[in-house]
């Protein structure tokens, strides 16, 4: 299954914006990032702790060894110097020298160094190895001077200039004869340093690997969960665009497989419903076409025969002649009704297509007015046109728009009680509107919403002698809807009625407001005409007394 889903359009976003978008849109990224943060913190803490413990262990062993060595050295020095008593400094020097040599000899070469330092005299201390006596921190000297054994970590400065981290342990040598001496041992910690560094490196490597592993596992697991979900989303998207064959692949029997199975079941059910509706609609269309043909052919013959009879009615008896007349007029009615029924049935079946072209509305209005001239003359009704000077051109199906206007105008002439009918045309923002106003009995409250109902009549008690099939306004509404426009009615008892058609300049384009008011009393009562409030439902009617309130 190849999936080509166009990603949502990301236009001109900054890098940060894109990252933020990615962050919001990818569960996998969020999980991986969170896991990285958490596991990173845990591994870092763990590593620090381990390293600390290891360092402590290493150093405490060193300290113990150093103190043991120091004890031994101090005891030896005490013994040597404590028993010696010499007034001659040269002799003392010799004793101390020999002691130092003894101490030096006891140190394994290179492992550590020893220093015997006097604090009272100006004589230099004795130091084995190449260590400078400036390595000994002052606070250690002070502590030893107070008679304590002490140790400190300090860099060991060698005479050649290089320094090594070290442990220095020192203790006082108790002597009676010669001036106070202090004995120091210098333990270089370079090996321990190296060990600790190695351990740190190992810990870092292992920690990093661990974090990578954990993040990888998290990403993998999320991927395993997210992929089917993404696939489901894509499948749903494709299904929604009309690819009814779209299904998800079912693997295994886990929760995700259940998701896929449920999705597929839903898709199959929807598909079968849609297909049934489609085949119904196809059947309906087919039926309409068949009825159309099967009914119209005999009707044509009947029509022509009736016409022949009607033309020669002067030769018949009065009763037969009247019958021929009745036949003729009722055939007209029957034809109109059949045409309207077939038309609305085509609308119901969705079998209507728009044949759009640029239509100049002024011209269309004039033509429609011309078409209904006979009816207007019969009703003794004037038609007053209010057309703008600039041509108003919309992309529309001229035949259908013309039929809408013919219906509205015919309706107004039928119910206009001989009063003038006003037809206004205005271009608006992205749309154009035509309103037809009559000054007949108008509509009672609530009727504005009913006028578009099929076979609805303003007064059931009123005789049916008015022309029209009762479907005209319903078809007009469907035709307007097909253009993406509005058809609305307003009426008040005694004040006439207004029917307003608003169509977009291009079929299906959206627009916000009609340039003509639906309720004419608004402009009559106030000189500055406020914009007519628009009902949200484009085909809703407006109740009298409640302008702007959709029913």
């Amino acid at each position, binding site marked *: 299954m190849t999936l080509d889903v166009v990603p949502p359009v990301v236009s001109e976003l900054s890098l940060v914006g894109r990252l933020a978008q990615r962050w919001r849109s990818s569960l996998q990224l969020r999980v991986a990032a969170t896991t990285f943060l958490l596991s990173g913190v845990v591994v870092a803490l763990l590593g620090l702790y381990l390293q600390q413990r290891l360092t402590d262990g290493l150093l405490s062993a060193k300290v113990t060894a150093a103190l043991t060595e120091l004890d031994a050295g101090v005891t030896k020095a005490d013994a040597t110097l404590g028993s010696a008593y010499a007034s001659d400094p040269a002799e003392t020097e010799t004793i101390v020298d020999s002691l130092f040599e003894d101490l030096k000899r006891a140190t394994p070469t290179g492992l550590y160094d020893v220093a015997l330092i006097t604090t009272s005299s100006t004589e230099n201390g004795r130091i084995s190895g190449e260590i400078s006596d400036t390595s000994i921190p002052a606070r250690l000297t002070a502590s030893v001077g107070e008679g304590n054994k002490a140790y400190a970590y300090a860099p060991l400065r060698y005479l050649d200039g290089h320094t090594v981290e070290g442990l220095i342990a020192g203790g006082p040598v108790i002597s009676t004869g010669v001036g106070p001496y202090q004995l120091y041992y210098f333990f270089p910690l370079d090996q321990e340093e190296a060990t600790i560094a190695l351990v740190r490196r190992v810990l870092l490597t292992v920690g990093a690997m661990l974090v990578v592993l954990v993040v990888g596992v998290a990403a993998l697991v999320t991927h395993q969960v997210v992929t089917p979900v993404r696939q489901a989303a894509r499948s749903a998207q494709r299904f929604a665009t009309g690819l009814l064959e779209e299904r998800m692949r079912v693997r295994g029997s886990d929760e995700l497989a259940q998701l896929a199975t449920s999705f597929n079941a839903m898709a199959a059910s929807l598909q079968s419903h849609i297909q049934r509706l489609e085949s119904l609609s196809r059947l309906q269309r087919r039926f309409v076409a068949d009825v159309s043909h099967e009914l119209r052919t005999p009707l044509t013959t009947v029509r*022509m025969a009736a016409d022949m009879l009607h033309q020669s009615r002067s030769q018949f008896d009065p009763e037969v002649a009247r019958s021929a007349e009745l036949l003729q007029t009722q055939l007209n009615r029957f034809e109109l009704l059949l045409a309207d029924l077939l038309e609305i049935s085509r609308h119901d079946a969705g*079998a209507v297509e728009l*044949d759009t*072209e640029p239509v*100049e509305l002024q011209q269309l209005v004039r033509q429609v007015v011309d*078409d209904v001239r006979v009816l207007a003359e019969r009703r003794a009704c004037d038609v007053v046109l209010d057309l703008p000077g600039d041509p108003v*051109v919309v992309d529309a199906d001229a035949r259908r728009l013309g039929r809408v206007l013919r219906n509205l105008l015919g309706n107004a002439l039928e119910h206009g009680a001989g009063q003038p009918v006003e037809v206004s045309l205005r271009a608006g923002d992205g749309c154009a509107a035509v309103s037809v106003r009559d000054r007949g009995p108008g509509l009672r409250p609530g009727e504005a919403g009913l006028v578009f109902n099929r076979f609805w009549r303003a007064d059931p008690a009123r005789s049916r002698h008015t022309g029209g099939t009762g479907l005209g306004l319903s078809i007009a509404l469907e035709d307007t809807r097909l253009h993406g426009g509005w058809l609305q009615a307003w009426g008040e008892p005694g004040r006439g009625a207004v029917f307003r058609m608003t169509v977009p300049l291009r079929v299906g384009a959206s627009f916000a407001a009609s340039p003509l008011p639906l309720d004419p009393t608004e402009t009559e009562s106030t000189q500055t005409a406020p914009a007519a409030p628009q009902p949200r439902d484009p085909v809703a009617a407006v109740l009298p007394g409640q302008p702007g309130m959709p029913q």
Partner: protein
Amino acid sequence: MKGRVLVVDDDPALAEMLGIVLRSEGFEPSFVAEGDRALAAFRDFKPDVVLLDVMLPGTDGIDVCRQIRAESGTPIVMLTARSDTIDVVLGLESGADDYVVKPFKPKELVARVRARLRRTDEPAAETLAIGDLEIDVAGHVVSRAGGSVALTPLEFDLLTTLARRPRQVFTREQLLEQVWGYKHAADTRLVNVHVQRLRSKIERDPEHPEIVVTVRGVGYKAGPP
């Protein structure tokens, strides 16, 4: 004026009724019920106008229309039960000059037939130019650089109407009146389809017409000569 009308319709009652009406108006009708035999009947009878039902057993009306158009420019009026855009346009595109939707009134039909016969009146000797075409009105010949272009009478009328007033923009309604002879309530799709058909015959590039030019929102006019 005696006109020979070939009626191609499979409904015997309607055919008979059409015969009655046509005869009462002074036409001379002839009948054929099957589409398969329509072309042979056309060749035998040599009608001035053909009335052709779209729905026929065997070869349907659209195909019959193409067959007749392939060898003659005789006016064809389609009888259709459907006013859907697709059916009408399909009929017109297959070469019909006009159509009437059932159920029609006898007067309406007769008016259409007469309108198609009207142009047999003797035209004045006249030569017109439009684009790089030359029109011999009396001889009913359109030629381009010596070679003639075959047009049906209706297409010829459409072209000459535009060519007579080179700078005038004709609305579809004006063309319906002047070419078809209809004053009211005719379908402007007639004009659209026939302009397309005419263009496909006379334009060098029908996608970018230079002889019959569309004036958006208004209609058509002749291109610069």
